[in-house]
């Protein structure tokens, strides 16, 4: 039976365990004179039986699924005669996939040596036994667990405490998912990056000026080494992010100031949600807009005044990205500006300063740390933004700071290197993970600093 079906079956069994548990606890309560003579409410006895039914079975299922593939593969390998058993890891993988293909019928059985056909047979048999055994064990464990929970129902049992304890542990495990995710991210980018840096020196990667990973496809090509100098990518990313921030910071900040200090309640109620729509528009939409509307427009505009503009200019991608992050800047600025205590405004106005003088000389300096935090968050968002640049920026790595030329970015390269066919040991695909590592470290630093500043700032006026 398939795992999905097993889980469905489990749901039914859990429901049954709950129902039987509920009935039994009610039955036990009757001779005692009602449920108030039970230690816990019947619900908890039933829950306890249901948990007994579900948890052990799930643990068994998980452990089984983690180990079964490896064990089956090993057994199949061991069944092969000594002399054709491969020694290297790569050859082993190759042989295994050949056996799997024969087993699934993708390859004819007589394609290889007879041992392969035998191994494929064994594989099919083992897989059949495996799924059968798993189903049986799973169902038996669930039934036994449920029965145990049912038998153990007694008026004195502290069912509520036990159920609550289990729930609490489950809640904690859920909170741990956040840590696991971080660990997973670090692991996935770190390990592949280490493999990458064993092939390409980190110094060449960080300071090299030449990026052309596409040449590294075959070992016998002239430029077989490939060039993995990431500086053009870094400058390209910074160029586009800088353009984006040049749009978003003034516009976002001034609109936050206007909405917080000048605008009436009605204007604010309309304009603020409208601006926030900009943050909710999917990035792929911005990418489409940048590539098909803004970029041609800028190119035509440039040509009409005699400038040569690339059709995938950094300017187009940067401008659109800037529009996208306006709401990030404005909403954080809005928060910090409204958090500045009213007394500071009143004091300044009382001394005869105009409203704009109060904003520029009192509120803005007071809110500056918070605004800086917001800008850093916006910068991290711009650096990590993918779809706009994938669709509207170029693929060729040009080392330039001219916004009218096409540049490529870190995220664009990650996507290009990892979509399509890939083999997992080539420097080309590993390079994507090294770039991912750089991206993760940069954005992490920006975020940590930004969150720290914002938090510090909040405490200041609380």
């Amino acid at each position, binding site marked *: 039976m398939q795992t999905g079906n097993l889980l469905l079956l489990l749901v039914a069994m859990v429901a049954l365990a709950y129902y039987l548990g509920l009935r039994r606890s009610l039955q036990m309560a009757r001779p005692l004179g009602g449920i108030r003579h039970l230690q816990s409410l019947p619900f908890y006895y039933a829950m306890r039986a249901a948990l007994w039914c579900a948890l052990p079975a799930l643990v068994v299922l998980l452990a089984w699924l983690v180990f079964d593939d490896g064990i089956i593969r090993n057994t199949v390998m061991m069944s092969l005669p000594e002399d054709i058993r491969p020694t290297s890891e790569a050859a082993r993988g190759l042989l295994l996939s050949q056996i799997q293909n024969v087993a699934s019928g993708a390859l004819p059985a007589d394609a290889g040596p007879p041992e392969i056909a035998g191994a494929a047979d064994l594989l099919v048999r083992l897989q059949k036994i495996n799924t059968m055994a798993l189903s049986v064990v799973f169902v038996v464990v669930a039934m036994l667990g449920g029965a145990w929970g049912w038998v153990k129902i007694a008026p004195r049992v502290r069912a509520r405490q036990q159920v*609550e304890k289990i729930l609490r542990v*489950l*809640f*904690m495990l*859920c909170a*741990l*998912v*956040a*840590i696991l*995710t*971080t660990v*997973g*991210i670090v*692991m*996935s*980018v770190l390990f592949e990056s280490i493999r990458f840096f064993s092939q390409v020196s980190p110094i060449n990667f960080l300071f090299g000026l030449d990026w052309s990973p596409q040449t590294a496809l075959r070992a016998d090509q002239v430029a077989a080494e490939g060039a993995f100098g990431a500086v053009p990518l870094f400058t390209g990313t910074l160029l586009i992010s800088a353009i984006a921030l040049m749009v978003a910071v003034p516009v*976002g900040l*001034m*609109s936050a100031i*206007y*909405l917080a200090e*000048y605008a009436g309640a009605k204007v604010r109620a309309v*304009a603020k*949600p*409208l*601006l926030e729509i900009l943050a*909710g*528009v*999917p*990035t*792929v*939409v*911005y*990418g*489409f807009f940048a590539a*098909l*509307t803004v970029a041609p427009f800028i190119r035509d505009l440039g040509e009409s005044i005699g400038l040569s503009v690339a059709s995938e200019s950094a300017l187009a991608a940067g401008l659109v990205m800037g529009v996208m992050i306006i709401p990030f800047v404005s909403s954080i600025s809005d928060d910090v500006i409204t958090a500045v205590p009213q007394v500071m405004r009143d004091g300044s106005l009382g001394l005869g300063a*105009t*409203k*704009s*003088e109060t*904003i520029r000389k009192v509120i803005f300096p007071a809110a500056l740390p918070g605004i800086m935090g917001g800008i850093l968050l916006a910068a*991290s*968002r711009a650096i*990590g*933004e*993918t*779809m706009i640049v*994938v*669709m509207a920026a170029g693929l060729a790595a040009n080392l330039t700071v001219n916004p009218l030329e096409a540049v490529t970015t870190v995220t664009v390269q*990650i*996507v290009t290197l*990892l979509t399509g066919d890939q083999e*997992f040991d080539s420097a080309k695909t590993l390079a994507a*993970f090294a770039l*991912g590592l750089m*991206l993760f470290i940069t954005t*992490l630093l920006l*975020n940590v600093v930004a*969150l720290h500043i914002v938090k510090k700032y909040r405490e200041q006026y609380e």
Partner: protein
Amino acid sequence: MSEITEKVRRSLARRYRSEKRFKAYGIASVAVGLIALSILFIDIVGKGHSAFFEHYLQLEVTLDREVLGIDDVTNKEQLDYANFSAVIKQALRERFPGVDDYEKKRQLYALVSNGASYNLRSELIANPDLLGSTRNVWLLADDDVDLFLKANAKGREESRLSDLQQKWVEQFERSGDTDKRFNASLFTSGDSREPELAGIWSAVVGSFFTMIVTLCLSLPIGVAAAVYLEEFAPKNRFTDFIEVNINNLAAVPSIIFGLLGLAIFINLFGMPRSVPMVGGIVLTLMTLPTIIITSRASIKTVPPSVREAALALGASKMQVVLHQVLPLAMPGILTGAIIGMAQALGETAPLLLIGMVAFIVDIPTSPMDAATVLPVQIFLWAGSPEQSFVALTSAAIMVLLAFLITMNTLAVLLRKRLERRW
């Protein structure tokens, strides 16, 4: 009057001017944002509205037994091999006699979409009596013809159709044999190389499965994590560490989650590529921080007096949380969940890395079938060279935006309707 007063008075005009300027900057900034928003929407709608309609050409078609190679309509095999496009070609030749050159014939046949023969086939299956009959039939036009018919005089000059083809299409137009109809296939079929046949339904279904997986995982995990952190967690370093992690994850670029999915779920755990299940898990990890943060904020707004009252009545801590606090915090949690889902629905980058960029024609039937999602479909179509795909992409964007706007409006309404001020 003292000197200083005099000085202040003289500077007043300048200061008021600068005040006005400053305010004007503010208004201009808000205007820039709003104008950018409206240009974006107008541009998308302007490009996409035409894709909701497509043109049909009327031809006199004879369902000739011999040309089709059918003598028994109930025979499924014969129907499968029947040559419906030959019937259409014949009809085109009869309509424009004298086209004998191979190249000209090719151009003539290109007027009608490849999909038209499928329509003829299903019509014949629905009504077997049609076999052998001659009648006027509306056939789906090719996308270039469709574009030509939709274009104005200036756009027609730039059409990809040859002069000969343009003449033919104009003849159709003059005799009233063209018809603009609602493009139902946009909403019912999967991806296709032919723009006039391509639809978003497979992507919508893929998005649906992905969102189901995301919702089923992220809502319970997110709420449980929020409850733990807000109500049960001891105030120690470990809890702080979890919090720092969550805050940082909320700002990690989405593409990093794609790398995680690729390295851990696909390469390490051996999960299949391109399936909504993996996509849903990756998006869960991405939206979890949003849901946890909003759920925590919502739990925090429940006043302590509620908890204390329940505790005083003898409820256990867990009962207080599950029976009192969570129901009161639910509107806020659901709002956060909807916003998180909207975020996930529009996400593209991580899904590209886990292989959801496949060309999917079939409608997926379960979360384990290869599928693509709406934003990725938009990305794929945006990269297609054919002109008609621009309109199609914009139309798909309009559908996506409609979903997102609905979800966000729902979130706002929910908040307004259910949230309590304490």
